């Protein structure tokens, strides 16, 4: 393809994507001039380039579209969804044309008059309402040949001559001296000459259609003045024009949309004018250089100018101007980049080239590994040092090349706003698409592969997930549905979340469909949990959309998405809550090309397991701490107080046990050496380098006997096994292998089509020793053995699901007390809800009390305006610790609401923490601590005196680190009430400052999810060194899955407690303090 054409296609395609996004933004923010200008500019460029390349169809469509945009800009048309749709339609047409252009290298035959007519109609309608469209037809420069002169040439000539010209200028110095000694301004003849020039120049400009728009409708004199100022200042007139700065002088022009093309025209006119006035040619050149050099400066400021301009930007009929370089020097002046961002330090490189590079690097890495392995066997080889360097360089090269392939995930999202917009129109829903973390980078190959699944999922969320506005309002949700995309790095993975706040998955249709498709029987269905039923949507051909819309419900569903994502080693998990929405979590590796893999062996065959999915390695034997136990022949392992389901790799792969020998092995029989690589030179179970791969025929017999020994032990109860704990989807499984070798960097190659249907391999690769090895996919293994496995795993999964759903939401108890506005308190703090017969309420000196569970329970009014009823039952919230209770009297208990809590207004009222929006209403969150002290002024000391439970812990200093003021406010009273002295810090940095101050604490409680430095980093920082190194750490998190728990431990937390579990927290603190007290 023609270079020019292919470049045009690349650029235009990029512009098209940007246009889509920008138009959607404009639709939402119709008054944003900046976006409108940008859109206008993009379309304009497309139109111009099409004209230049001789693509009339494209040009016409773009032109018609541009006209409409022009009307937007003029303010003649307001930006409405209908018009935006129309523009989008024309963009779609352009895209179609571009596609065909790309395929055939020629503009397709056809006619766009229908579309153009529509666009023109809009323009005409707007034209009637407003000013006539100022868009002139492209005309050649010749239009300005006959300037309408108001001042005769002679007059000007005279004026020019009378001024001190360059010939008879101050002192007849030679040109050079003049140039250095006087400003150009003086050289051309000073103020007067400039005045005259400007007059003539102005006439030329007015005659030129392409630029006259700037000057129309503006007072002539002021305009001339401005022009004179412009030229004068450009030429360096010192104070000639009221000391106006260059910027001030040009501002009016730029305000009106002066652009590059205009500048060229203006410059040409100026050059012509000067020539006509008989100015020395060399001098003209100089002037032009000066003018040219101001170009950057002048054009750089349009944005500021546009912002400062209060009134609508005057229609500037931008017109594609064949680049006419007025003077040679002009070319030397760097054209400012769009937006004046300066020189862009990037180049375009073809993807093929990068792919080739990547492949070469992959091969290089492999060869390097091979060499390393060879040299490792030689002691003290002279190759070691250069090889080390080679290795180093290779690694750097690999990293560098990898980086070139990284692209922000936003690229894959570019189309989504448009899709969502179209969907919302089509489905008549209001949808808000929130995209977070768009600059998260990942390998472009991965990016390409997830593009479609992502699009599909977002569509699904918008189509199936979100309800129509009416339904939403009826359900008490805002009419605008929200689809949130969030991408972030976690470990070696990218996590992409797609969440909607829609109706969630409804069980019934899924059940029905599952029955229809014969996936389950009615009996089986009854036994399934909600979560298990949800998982059916991942099965092939499972679409529950009641009607086939143009967006989804074609029977191509989540199974395709899942298989696509799993193809690249990713996983999809999702959670759904009826009425509250669905949340998908996609986890994908950063790159596919080169991964670290653990080489393991089972039944004499070696396999690779990607390191990314390996969680840990456990060595299990009969006499060690870790022992494989069996439940009805199903092996399990106790691992940190949990049962880990195990899969024996040899069984999962139906490998024949080793002792069957090579003779019975079909392949080995055909080709001896086929099962080479079983270098059992080490004792069974011992880790060793994979050195014996180059097995020789002679050694085969010895090895056979070694294998036999191994097998005997294998059956023995005291067998030594290695368990690779791997991440398979949401759960962990233990893969039992015979041996574990090194980890190696491998280049994943796809398996041949014949083997593609085997779900358990994610690819294959060539190892350093030249042998081919299959790469295992732990998820595939789990699935292949799933029936008994799924059961065991489901419990853990459910737990994780729940913790995932509880993220950042708090259960609030809403009640009325004294005022019509609702009040609320976190449910976690409330021990019980009671209705107490008012007749049992007794009065004492210090207030009302009731006998409650064998104790006197003081009653406190939640609001001054509450009056305890005369008869009947009185509602109250009971707060208690182990010993005492307090009743908070309220008027009426309203509801329990689960939601994210954001205390927006902090209250000065002592009983109120602040105000938050709960269930759509402004609700006061009460301060429990305040009421507790109301009931027991001596609560703290009393607590200390009587408490044997808190023995070691009483009066201990606790540091509470939590970014949420709400949680701080809620936990502080809880902890204080329990007799601790609490210091709170709003984030890790604040906490670390306390450390630097030398403060010491007995326990540190830290939130995990915090901005900037999260709890894990915070823990690592503390445990690494310093004053707080030995202080016990308790993690506080809304995520309390096993994984989180383990991660917390790794990071250095001594305990891990759910945020909402007050009792567990107190128990944990107590336990931790007791433990440290004992050890001390």
């Amino acid at each position: 393809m023609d270079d020019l054409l292919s470049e045009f296609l690349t650029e235009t395609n990029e512009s098209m994507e940007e246009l889509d996004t920008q138009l959607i933004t404009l639709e939402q923010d119709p008054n944003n001039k900046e976006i409108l200008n940008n859109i206008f500019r993009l379309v304009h460029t497309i139109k111009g380039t099409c004209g230049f390349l001789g693509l009339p169809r494209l040009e016409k469509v773009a032109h018609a579209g541009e006209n409409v945009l022009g009307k937007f800009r003029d303010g003649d048309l307001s930006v409405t969804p209908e018009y935006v749709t129309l523009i989008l339609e024309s963009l779609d047409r352009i895209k179609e044309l571009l596609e065909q252009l790309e395929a055939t290298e020629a503009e397709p035959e056809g006619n766009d008059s229908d579309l153009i007519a529509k666009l023109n109609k809009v323009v005409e309608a707007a034209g009637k309402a407003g000013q006539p469209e100022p868009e002139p037809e492209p005309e050649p420069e010749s239009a300005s040949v006959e300037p309408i002169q108001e001042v005769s040439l002679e007059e000007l000539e005279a004026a020019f001559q009378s001024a001190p010209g360059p010939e008879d200028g101050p002192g007849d110095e030679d040109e050079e001296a003049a140039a250095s000694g006087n400003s150009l301004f003086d050289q051309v003849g000073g103020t007067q000459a400039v005045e005259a020039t400007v007059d003539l120049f102005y006439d030329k400009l007015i005659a030129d259609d392409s630029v006259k728009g700037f000057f129309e409708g503006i007072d002539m004199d002021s305009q001339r003045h401005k022009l004179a100022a412009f030229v004068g200042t450009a030429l360096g007139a010192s104070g000639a024009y009221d000391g106006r700065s260059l910027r001030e002088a040009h501002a009016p022009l730029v305000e009106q949309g002066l652009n590059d093309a205009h500048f060229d025209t203006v410059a040409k006119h100026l050059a012509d004018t000067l020539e006509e006035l008989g100015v020395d040619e060399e001098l003209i050149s100089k002037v032009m250089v000066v003018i040219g050099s101001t170009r950057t400066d002048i054009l750089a400021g349009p944005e500021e100018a546009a912002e400062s301009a209060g009134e609508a930007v005057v229609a500037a009929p931008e017109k594609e101007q064949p680049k006419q370089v007025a003077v040679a020097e002009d070319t030397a002046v760097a054209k400012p980049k769009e937006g004046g961002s300066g020189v862009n330090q990037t180049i375009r490189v073809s993807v093929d080239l990068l792919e080739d590079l990547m492949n070469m690097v992959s091969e290089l890495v492999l060869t390097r590994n091979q060499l390393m392995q060879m040299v490792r066997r030689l002691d003290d080889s002279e190759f070691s040092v250069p090889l080390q360097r080679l290795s180093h360089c290779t690694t750097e090269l690999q990293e560098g090349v990898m980086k070139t392939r990284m692209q922000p995930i936003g690229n894959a999202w570019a189309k989504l706003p448009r899709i969502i917009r179209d969907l919302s129109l089509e489905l008549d829903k209001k949808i808000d698409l929130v995209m977070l973390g768009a600059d998260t980078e990942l390998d472009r190959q991965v990016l390409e592969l997830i593009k479609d699944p992502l699009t599909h999922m977002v569509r699904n969320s918008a189509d199936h997930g979100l309800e129509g506005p009416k339904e939403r309002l009826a359900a008490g949700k805002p009419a605008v549905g929200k689809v949130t995309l969030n991408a972030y790095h976690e470990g070696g993975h990218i996590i992409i979340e797609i969440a909607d706040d829609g109706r969630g998955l409804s069980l019934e249709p899924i059940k029905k469909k599952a029955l229809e498709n014969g996936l389950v029987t009615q009996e089986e269905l009854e036994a399934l949990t909600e979560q298990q039923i949800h998982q059916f949507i991942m099965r092939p051909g499972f679409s529950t959309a009641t009607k086939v819309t143009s967006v989804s419900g074609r029977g191509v569903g989540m199974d395709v998405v899942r298989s696509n994502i799993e193809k690249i080693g990713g996983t999809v998990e999702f959670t759904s809550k009826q009425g509250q929405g669905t949340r998908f979590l996609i986890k994908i590796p950063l790159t596919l090309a080169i991964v670290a893999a653990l080489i393991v062996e089972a039944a004499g065959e070696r396999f690779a397991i990607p390191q990314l999915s390996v969680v840990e390695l456990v060595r299990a034997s009969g006499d060690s701490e870790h022992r494989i136990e069996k439940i009805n022949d199903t092996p399990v392992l106790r691992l940190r107080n949990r049962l880990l389901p195990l899969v024996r790799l040899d069984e999962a792969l139906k490998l024949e046990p080793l002792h069957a020998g090579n003779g019975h092995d079909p392949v080995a029989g055909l080709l001896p050496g086929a099962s080479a690589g079983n270098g059992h030179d080490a004792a069974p179970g011992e880790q060793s380098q994979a050195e014996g791969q180059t097995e020789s025929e002679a050694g085969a017999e010895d090895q056979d006997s070694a294998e036999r020994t191994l097998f005997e032990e294998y059956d023995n109860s005291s067998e030594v096994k290695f368990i690779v704990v791997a991440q398979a989807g949401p759960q962990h499984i233990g893969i039992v292998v015979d041996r574990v070798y090194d980890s190696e960097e491998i280049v994943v190659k796809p398996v041949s089509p014949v083997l593609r249907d085997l779900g358990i391999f994610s690819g294959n690769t060539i190892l350093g020793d030249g042998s081919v090895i299959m790469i295992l996919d732990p998820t595939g293994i789990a699935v292949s053995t799933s029936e008994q496995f799924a059961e065991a795993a489901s419990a853990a999964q459910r737990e994780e699901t729940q913790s995932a759903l509880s993220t950042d939401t708090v259960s609030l108890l809403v009640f009325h007390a004294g005022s019509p506005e609702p009040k609320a308190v976190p449910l976690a703090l409330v021990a019980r809800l009671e209705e107490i017969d008012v007749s049992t309420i007794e009065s004492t000196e210090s207030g009302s009390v009731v006998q409650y569970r064998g104790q006197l329970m003081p009653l406190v009014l939640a609001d001054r305006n509450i009056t305890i009823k005369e008869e009947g039952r009185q509602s109250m919230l009971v707060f208690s610790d182990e010993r005492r209770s307090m009743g908070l009297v309220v008027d009426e208990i309203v509801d329990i609401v689960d939601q994210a809590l954001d205390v927006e207004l902090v209250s000065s009222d002592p009983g109120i923490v602040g105000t938050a929006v709960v269930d759509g209403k402004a609700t006061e969150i009460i301060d429990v601590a305040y009421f507790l002290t109301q009931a027991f002024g001596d609560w703290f000391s009393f607590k200390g005196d009587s408490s044997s439970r808190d023995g070691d812990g009483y009066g201990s200093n606790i540091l509470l680190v939590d970014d949420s003021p709400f949680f701080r406010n809620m936990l502080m009273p809880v902890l204080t009430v329990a007799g601790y002295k609490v210091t709170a810090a709003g984030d890790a940095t604040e906490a670390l400052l306390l450390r630097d101050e030398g403060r010491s604490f007995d326990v540190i409680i830290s939130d995990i999810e915090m901005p900037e430095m999260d709890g894990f980093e915070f823990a690592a920082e503390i445990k690494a060194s310093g004053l707080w190194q030995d202080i016990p750490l308790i993690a506080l998190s809304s995520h309390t899955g096993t994984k989180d728990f383990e991660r917390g431990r790794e990071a250095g937390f001594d305990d891990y407690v759910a945020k909402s579990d007050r009792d567990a927290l107190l128990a944990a603190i107590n336990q931790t303090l007791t433990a440290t007290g004992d050890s001390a």
Partner: protein
Amino acid sequence: MSNELTTVDHNVGGEIATPSVDEEYVTMTIAGQLFGIRVLTVHDVLGPQKITKVPLAPSEVAGVLNLRGRIVTAISVRNALGLPDGEGAGMSVVVEHEEESYSLLIDQVGEVLKVPHDAYEQCPATLDARWRELATGVFRLDGELMVVLDVAKLLDFGLNKNAA
């Protein structure tokens, strides 16, 4: 049998229906039987190779091997023909099918023969169904019969089976 000609007409593996000109074939023996593959479809002839078994793969797939840095799937022709595994070292010929290379494991590679086109005959109807499936026809050579292997069929076999 009557549709034998039409089935081979798809010609994916470079096999021909009824040869009209004399062509060259690479001959090979499997369990004493002479087979032939058109010489142009053979990319490589290999001696015994180190093959990595692929667990759970179709029985015809002997494994994968490293052919000069490329990973090639090895197909056991014996298994495909329903023959027992052979003894001793085997050889293989590398063929390409739908842009993928496959190594066909056979007992012994013979010479390249130019066979007269008029010696061609369709497979006898009494031949074992598996063989008939994988053979395009038979050449009557001096003292011996050469069965022409249908490479495309051989390599499609695994896929069809999986799809079924």
